[in-house]
């Protein structure tokens, strides 16, 4: 067990932007920690820069030249006298070199060790480590050298087969093969995608689990060997492996299975020697058999739903853990109550094949009201830059039961109003009203299966605003062309 010294964190460099940077700044404010953020050219007027105590210009807008530039980020953290660095999700959060560079620069990295990140970033190593801790994993082919190999494997375990990038993650770099004759082409494709997106084009193969639900467990570990889990999150509502809606708890698990899987998670993480917050992702098939697929060694976008049902601030816990404090909550203290749902509002046009929709936010009405939480990194008048991901707001609703949480989410989605960009809100509203979703009957194919139906919406505008649009048109033209 690695032993570390307690070191207070008084000033934190947040190596991220957008909603997760803003959300972290809030926790810093609560904890009395001075927050510092970096920013790129196009982010000079972004919300995280406005909110932080201090900001450092990192470089040009492309992420490679700013947020992904390890040296610049480390320099910025040191120059501003920070004790620690928080990476958030995306960007450098899963780069073991970055974690190592922080350590070398004398900065506390608010996350797992570089070694753990490195091994969790290698899918094969992860699977080996999980298997060693007796966690069920998907039957797989670790070293893919030829298409023939995959064909044999497929014939043994059954089709379809998924080919995945070893260095992949976040649902990117996956190709599905439905039948042996498509294998060669799929392998080429998978190699090529992996080569483009990641550091290596190496891939591995896995049995495709049909009708599966994507269920993940949140856990928290301190430097003293204490590991607890905070229950599961249901993340099956995805499009092309990008999650749209997450909730906790899952309608699929009963208390017994939850306990069993939770124990598996805790055992595995103890085995791995994991420290700080992380997620173990599972696929659960229709026979309730579960397979671990990967570990996310970082805070996740959907951590909010766990926070809501567990009543814990995960980022606060991460900062405390990084500062060498022991977890004070024990597994038996964790009471998961109520039901939380999160919707991701992306600046995308669902009707135009989810094309990103960038531009100026000319009007914004955020949501509020009872049991609704909104995490956002945007404000009215701000221009959404085209360089980064399209997530603009996460809306989370909490209620005693799932039905009420859905109704509450519907209300919040109706209240949210944004002008200037297209968003996924109308689609999310459709999902909240879909009978299968409401009944809790869905799997990871839900969106694909119902896409036409879900996209069959009309964006309804507030009646007064529609009239305002009319008056604007008449005013611009100078006279009413409809009546003359």
């Amino acid at each position: 067990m690695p032993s570390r010294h307690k070191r207070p964190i008084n000033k934190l460099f947040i190596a991220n932007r957008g909603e997760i940077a803003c959300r972290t700044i809030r926790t810093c404010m609560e904890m009395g920690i001075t927050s510092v953020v970096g920013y790129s050219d196009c982010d000079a007027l972004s919300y995280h820069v406005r909110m932080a105590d201090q900001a450092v210009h990192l470089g040009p807008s492309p992420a490679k030249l700013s947020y992904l530039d390890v040296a610049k980020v480390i320099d910025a953290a040191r120059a501003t006298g920070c004790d620690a660095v928080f990476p958030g999700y995306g960007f450098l959060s899963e780069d073991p070199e970055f974690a190592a560079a922080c350590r070398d620069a004398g900065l506390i990295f608010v996350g797992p060790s570089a070694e753990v990140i490195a091994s969790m970033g290698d899918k094969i190593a992860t699977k080996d480590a999980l298997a060693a801790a007796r966690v069920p994993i998907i039957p797989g082919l670790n070293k893919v050298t030829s298409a023939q190999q995959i064909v044999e494997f497929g014939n043994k375990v059954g089709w379809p087969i998924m080919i995945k990038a070893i260095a992949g993650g976040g649902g990117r770099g996956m190709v599905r093969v439905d039948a042996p004759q498509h294998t060669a082409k799929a392998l080429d494709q998978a190699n090529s995608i992996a080569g483009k997106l990641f550091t290596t084009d190496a891939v591995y193969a896995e049995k495709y689990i049909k009708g599966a639900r994507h269920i993940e467990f949140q856990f928290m570990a301190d430097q003293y060997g204490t590991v607890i889990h905070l229950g599961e999150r249901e993340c099956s509502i995805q499009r092309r492996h990008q999650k749209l809606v997450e909730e906790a708890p899952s309608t699929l698990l009963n208390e017994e299975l939850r306990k069993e899987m939770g124990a598996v998670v805790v055992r595995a993480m103890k085995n791995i020697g994991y420290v700080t917050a992380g997620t173990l992702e599972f696929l659960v098939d229709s026979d309730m058999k579960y397979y671990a697929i990967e570990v996310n060694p970082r805070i996740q976008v959907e951590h909010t739903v766990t926070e809501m049902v567990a009543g814990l601030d995960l980022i606060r816990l991460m900062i405390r853990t990084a500062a060498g404090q022991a977890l004070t909550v024990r597994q038996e203290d964790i009471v998961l109550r109520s039901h939380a749902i999160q919707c991701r509002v992306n600046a995308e046009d669902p009707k135009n094949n989810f094309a990103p929709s960038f531009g100026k936010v000319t009007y914004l009405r955020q949501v509020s009201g009872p049991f609704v939480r909104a995490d956002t990194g945007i404000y009215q008048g701000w221009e959404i830059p085209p360089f980064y991901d399209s997530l603009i707001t996460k809306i989370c609703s909490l209620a005693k039961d799932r039905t009420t949480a859905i109704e509450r989410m519907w209300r919040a989605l109706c209240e949210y109003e944004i002008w200037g960009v297209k968003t996924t809100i109308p689609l999310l509203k459709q999902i909240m009203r879909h009978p299968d979703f409401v009944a809790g009957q869905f799997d990871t194919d839900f969106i694909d299966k119902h896409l036409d139906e879900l996209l069959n919406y009309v964006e309804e505008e507030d009646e007064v605003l529609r009239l305002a649009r009319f008056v604007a048109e008449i005013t611009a033209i100078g006279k009413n062309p409809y009546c003359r």
Partner: protein
Amino acid sequence: MTTKPTNVHPTLSPKENVAILRRDKKIYFTNTGPRDTGQSDFKNRHTLYDLIRLAPLYNRSGYFSVENHGGARFHQNLLQNKIDPFEEAARWKERMPDVMTQTLVRSTNLWGYRMYPRNVVALSVKAFLPYVDVWRCFDFLNYVPNMVPIAEEVMKGGKLFEPAISFSVSEDCTNAYYLKVTREILAVTGGAKEIILCIKDMAGVGSPKRITSLVDALLQKYPSLIIHYHRHTTDGLAVPALVAAAKAGAKILDVTDDPFTRYYGHAPVRSVNALLQEQGMETNLDLTWVDEAARIVTDFIGNYQEFESQFRGFSHKVTEHRMPGGAFPSSFEQAEKGDFLHLMPHILRGMSYGNRFIKYFDVTPGSQITWTTWAAIVQFHFKEGGYRQVDQLLDACERFIASGQRLNKVTPAERDILLGLYSRATDDLKSLLLGRYGPLPFGWPADWVYQSAFGDAWRERVKKDRIEASPLDQKKKENIAAIQRELEDKIGRRVMPEDLVLYLQHPGATVDFLAFRRKFGDTTILPTRVWFDGLQAVGREVYFDHQGKPNTFKLLSIGTEVAGVRHVVMAVNNTMHVFPVDMPSAKDRLKTEARLADPAVKGEIGSPMMGNVWRIGDKDRSLKVGDIVREGQEIMNLEAMKIETAILSPMHGVIKDIPVKLSQAVVEKQLLLVLGAAPWSERKGKGASKVKKPE
């Protein structure tokens, strides 16, 4: 103990209301301001925002009824006012619960421009029954069988049916003739117990003496008949004529608020009331509220100045040309837009002859047939030979009439002119001549008219196609379910029964209207000036209520046009919003500029007239580029002045191009469609030789 009600009221049965009118000595009024006056003098542009302010005042003024519905306002509401006729009717009913609401129905044309079969009539009338108390129904041929379907539905529905006799002044329009029409009406309505008879003087031509004689003749024969005199002001004699009618025994008179009165609408209520009282008659008005309504009208009437007629002033000549008040300003507007305002005196002169060649009443759709026919005749001759040729034509008509309409009494040149008079007759005029609207009131026109309209083969055409009985008997039921599906396809949502009724009257306008409503919502809650002109200047603000909540829009800035877009910044309820507005760009304007058909190019089909493309294809099939059409097939339909004109394919062919869009306004000769030779017609050797030149 029950007491007999003493005041007419919407909640009483037609029989009870008619009984009260019979017992009561007082003279009653119908205020036509919101509908007919608005149509006759302000082109039906009154906004609901302004009009509805009058409802609570009318409600207390003691009117018999208020005409707030029907006629051309129905179409105009969909077309340019963007008012839902159902919502408008419902709002009146709600804010004027104690005074009857009134509509005007064009017999089986209802509020549209074609004859509807019984199932459509039943559906449409039923839909409006809850909102409309008095149903005035006329037929431009005074052909009573055309009124029957309406009479049945209205009387069955428990509302007051008011059949109207179309009134005019001519040697044929005698008391005996109107007694005959009235007898036919009363035979249909089962007597006079639960109906009111309207004398519809839509052009305003009945002199005090003439109207006295007619009312007297009717009451001599049917003493218990309640007579309602509808009269326009065009000849300048409305006030004395109305008073004369009342003196002769008419019970209800059409009037309007004093400040609504112009030239072609209705007489001022206060003036008529004063003269009646001076002559010793009692009236049923509460002047406090009449004056308050007048104050409101004065307040808003300035909004409509630009829509008043191009030509203003009384015209006693109306007794000759008989153009009805409701068609006056729109005709002048057409003439101005079509650049033939200078020909108006000639057109009106032509009309005064035309109504002696083909006899019917100049009211919808007859008035539109008259107008399009004579506007086309005079324009054609003007284009060919200027004023000289127009004068020749009109002089020939005049001499022909002076000769007692005998062709052998005029010169051969004049005879030729007359035989060519109707050679470019519209489909509607031909339909009229073939009895498709019903038999003409004073018999079929002379043979030379048919010869002129149908050419050498006129005898066969008359023999084969002229309907001598009721055209209604030949009207097949329409497949309403199919029409509903058609509308569903067009608007992409479930169709409400109300949508369907609107669509049945005016298909194109309804689809456009529903799209507008979907985009902007209910614009009738916006103040009139903002509806017409927007916010005009930076800093301007508008206030209005929506569902009881006050709202304000303030114009903060307005950008210049960049790449076809202007950015308008407004504070909407104190919150700033930016609205990008796509401007009708110069490019678009060029695109809509008319390309004319080249008559030398085979297959280029030009528009025979100015109008609106409301259908591409025929009733059953819409056409697109690539479709094959047969010779004589209807390939497009234009609408102008409430008249539909079919464009028939002059050849077998395949559609190469359709350079016009639905709802597009087109000018005469504008290229509508380009046809190429169809492969199969070439094979069979049919081709250029059989192709007729497009007209």
